[in-house]
């Protein structure tokens, strides 16, 4: 593990010296008004319904992706987030050439994914966290030999590449095992390595940390960082783990119900929608908090102020636009003596939760 960490660190240091200047960076991915519709047959429940729909099918058009536009610079790490069923995977599948868009345009490095697919996929790497792309019964080493042939990687580059991937992803321990015997963490590392064998320009990761433990998650993140900085590989990743987003992504695109709802830096998201703060304190005498009555004092709606008392710590979540920290503090201190007190920004998770539940109004 320590070797793993130090390698990543070293790579990061090397990278700082060789980083491309702003001018050399180019827009790599263009997505414009992308739309995808699926036809779905509606069936009445039961066998009778199935038979009826067999003879007289009723179709319904479902729009998975309504109208999405964004672009990505070379070397960027873009987080693609949104609740389940928002259309993230559908967008990724269109960008990787798996699905043909109903309308709209996407262009990656000057190529249109679903046209000239064979040529295009040489330049990208794809990992779907939910299902492996590797061959179930093949030993991992042989898997890479197959991929080497498929991607026409020459012997020398292959050797170098394997050494690098080994270093970053620590494949050595299980490279002789068949894929079916790998643990989820090993399999994910193996999948990521497989997607990088041909040095792609863009790496698509669809939930690369799903179901992994904290340590493995951390390793995978470090590996992604190392690959991004070492080779200036553009990374697009979807995730539900907001730690991934905070650690890796310079920018996020958030989509919901097939439409884009936010596009920008995480810090922008925080400053725009993160007026929510949290004040926590530990009263000297737990009974003294009974004299606090926030509703009466401030008369705010529950979405602007909420409090909770677990017996030891008392916490108040409040909207900073509606009530200042000072006012709140003064009130608390006037009613009770405190042992400890702490005011913090709401974390990204809270903000996103709010957006998903559409508590926070977006105007992006």
């Amino acid at each position, binding site marked *: 593990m320590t070797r793993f960490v130090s390698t990543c660190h070293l790579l990061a240091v090397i990278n700082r010296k060789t980083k491309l200047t702003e001018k050399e960076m180019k827009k790599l991915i263009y997505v414009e008004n992308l739309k995808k519709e699926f036809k779905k047959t509606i069936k009445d429940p039961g066998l009778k319904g199935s038979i009826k729909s067999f003879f007289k099918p009723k179709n319904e058009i479902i729009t998975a992706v309504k109208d999405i536009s964004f672009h990505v610079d070379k070397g960027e790490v873009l987080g693609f987030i949104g609740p389940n069923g928002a259309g993230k995977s559908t967008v990724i599948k269109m960008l*990787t*050439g798996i*699905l*043909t868009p109903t309308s709209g345009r996407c262009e990656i490095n000057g190529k249109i994914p679903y046209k000239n697919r064979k040529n295009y996929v040489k330049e990208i790497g794809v990992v779907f966290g939910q*299902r492996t792309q590797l061959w179930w*019964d093949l030993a991992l080493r042989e898997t890479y*030999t197959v991929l080497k042939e*498929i991607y026409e990687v020459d012997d020398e580059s292959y050797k170098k590449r394997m050494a690098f991937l080994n270093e970053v992803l620590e494949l050595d321990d299980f490279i002789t095992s068949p894929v079916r015997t790998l643990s989820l963490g090993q399999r994910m590392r193996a999948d990521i390595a497989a997607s990088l064998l041909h040095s792609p320009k863009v790496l698509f990761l669809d939930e690369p940390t799903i179901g992994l433990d904290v340590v493995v998650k951390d390793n995978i993140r470090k590996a992604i960082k190392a690959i991004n900085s070492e080779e200036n590989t553009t990374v697009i990743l979807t995730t539900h783990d907001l730690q991934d987003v905070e650690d890796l992504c310079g920018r996020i695109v958030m989509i919901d119900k097939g439409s884009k709802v936010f596009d920008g830096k995480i810090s922008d998201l925080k400053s725009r929608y993160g007026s929510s703060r949290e004040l926590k304190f530990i009263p000297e005498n737990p009974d003294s908090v009974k004299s606090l009555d926030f509703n009466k004092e401030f008369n705010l709606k529950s979405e602007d102020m909420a409090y909770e008392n677990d017996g030891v710590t008392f916490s108040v979540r409040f909207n900073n636009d509606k009530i200042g920290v000072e006012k709140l503090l003064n009130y608390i201190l006037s009613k009770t003596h405190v042992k400890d007190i702490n005011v913090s920004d709401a974390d990204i998770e809270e903000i996103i939760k709010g957006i998903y539940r559409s508590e926070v109004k977006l105007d992006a």
Partner: protein
Amino acid sequence: MKLLRKTHRMFKLHRIFIKQDLKKLMEYKIDFLTGAVGMLLTQIINIFFLSVIFSNIPDLDGYTFGQIIFIYGFALIPKAIDHLFFDNLWAIGYFIIRKGDFDKYLTRPVSTLFAVTVEKFQVDAFGELLVGILLLGWSIPQLTLNISALNIFLFIIAIFFATFIYTGVKLITSSIAFWTKRSGHIIYMFYMINDFAKYPTTIYNKAVRAVVTYIVPFAFTAFFPASYFIIGGNPWYNIGGTVVMSVILMAVGIFIWNKGVTAYESAGS
């Protein structure tokens, strides 16, 4: 030069997967042995019934027992070769598309059809191949065949193209799954028509004969080419027909497959 490199690459990939499937065979011994024994029993029972029939009648529609066995054996060879290399098409019809597993073939810079078929080498087919060759070997001495260089060449041509009649039928029927999500039973229905091709089609009524000659042309995988070798006939029809049918089926199959790939809808994940 480029084509040569491409073919070389294809063979190399085939080799890796074949090696893998042979290894798997050792790992799942019981499964393989059961399959092989079952297959052998099926063939033995079929041959046994044929011999019972022929012990009571001298010939079937003018064909002797030796000739029938030749046709039967001939039929097994292209079927076995198709089975050996293109077995994964069944999986396309039954679950690869339905489960969204087709995604992975689309992210590789090789033809999807090649990527799908290369990854399975169906070792079970060796049984059929063996039985087919044994039956031919047994029947040839009983027959008066004109063994010339030309005929040996035509034999190889016939076997090769007959194989792609099987593949073509499977390709067309499995491609339907791109739209319907599942077409396993459709493949099965059409594929099973090949059972008619093991016997002289002249013994069937007109409707069956028309189906196996022109619609699902399995007659060209066995009866037509085989009868050219045992009783002679017009090679342009008997062997040429096999080539034409095979080319048509494969062309239609590849066309529908490619259309299907663009209609592919994946599955939620």
